[in-house]
């Protein structure tokens, strides 16, 4: 029936820390938009506190973090902690940018990041991953 529920996947893409590179995150944003998702973009240089507050207000299911500054081991654990403190541990967190594999493993195993997408990832893989996560929610 037309006019029934119209559920959409909402994604918040954020750039934490001091990092001026947003080409990658915008390409991901366009791919997710073209896959029918509602993508909210934060803009550059967000603090963990600010972006967690924004993610809560926007009530997103997915939080995507793009970091190319090398500060991921400081920023991401802090963001995960803030989410848990805000009772929002159910938000799926994914990350991308320049994150070495060893660090990625720690972020997933110890900090609760759902997945880290490295350079060269096919955007279709990200779309499929998000859809699968949201279906399970």
């Amino acid at each position: 029936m037309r006019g029934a529920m119209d559920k959409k996947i909402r994604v918040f893409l954020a750039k934490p820390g001091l990092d001026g590179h947003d080409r990658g995150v915008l390409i991901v944003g366009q791919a997710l938009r073209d896959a029918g998702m509602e993508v909210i973009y934060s803009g550059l240089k967000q603090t963990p506190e600010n972006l967690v507050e924004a993610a809560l207000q926007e009530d997103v299911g997915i939080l995507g973090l793009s970091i190319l500054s090398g500060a991921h081991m400081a920023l991401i654990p802090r963001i995960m902690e803030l989410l848990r403190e805000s009772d929002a541990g159910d938000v799926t967190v994914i990350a991308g940018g320049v994150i070495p594999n060893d660090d990625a493993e720690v972020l997933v195993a110890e900090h609760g990041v759902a997945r880290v997408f490295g350079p060269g990832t096919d955007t279709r893989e990200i779309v499929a991953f998000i859809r699968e996560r949201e279906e399970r929610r």
Partner: protein
Amino acid sequence: MKDSPNDLYQKLLKGDRRAAARLITLVENADPSARQALKMLHRHSGGGHIVGMTGSPGSGKSTLTCRLARHYRDEDRSVGIICVDPSSPFTGGALLGDRVRMQELSGDPEVFIRSMGSRGALGGLSVATNDVINILDAFGKDVIIVETVGAGQVEIEVVKYTHTCIVVTMPGGGDEIQAIKAGILEIGDIFVVNKSDRDGAPRAVADLEMMLETKPGTSEEAWKPPVITTMALAGEGIDELAAAISAHRGFLVESGLLEEKTVQRMRAELLEILNLKVSRAAENALEEEGVGAELVRRMADREIDPHSAADEVVEYLLKRAGR
């Protein structure tokens, strides 16, 4: 994990931002469970001043909204912001970037910003936006700013029934009036020429003032929309804009028009909901075998004309409703 509508309602009234965010999601998804909470919230709404912000793309609406919100925060008033942006009619997706221009507000829990995709195809945007306004109103926000591109009927409807409607334009080599789409000049309570450091700003102001001066149906005691120049990025003209908004509010209160506007808003809201319900009922009827489907076939065979077919559907719906 999932809160009941009553839980959401209770939490929202206690100032829980997540409850407000969750309820807005339910409204956006046209989830029937939002209804119960909206019903209870209605009597708590009505305290906030609702400001519409519209204008052509790139005129600086988001930056202006951000600066205006900062102004209100300095006065210790809480602010709700709703940014409506178009969804793709092809994929239904949207890239919502208004927060990029509002970074200095992020982190302040007294400013609640929500980005909405227009989700065009369903035609429920006005209804959903009104619901979100009411939620933020009941949530206790003193000022609620609704920002939308002034293109398309639905977007205009959204800002038309706010308390104070601001129309934003910028100097553009004589095109500033052109940039204001037909039907928008009539609904502006305040006009803003933003980016006033650009060439042609005085001319843009003069043109606008002349257009407003010669607007038909303007009486002596009616509100005269001021034209204000701003440089939102530099924060210039924001105090003047805020002063114009409170002057407009004062005018509405003194003239008794605030009540009239509220009634108009309620009427428009009711009509939007009815439109949505009736058109959904009609669409469903068209898919019913032996009713709409049959009529459509007869139209294709040139047995019945479209107007008579529509009359038959209306009669069918009325008869069914009367049962």
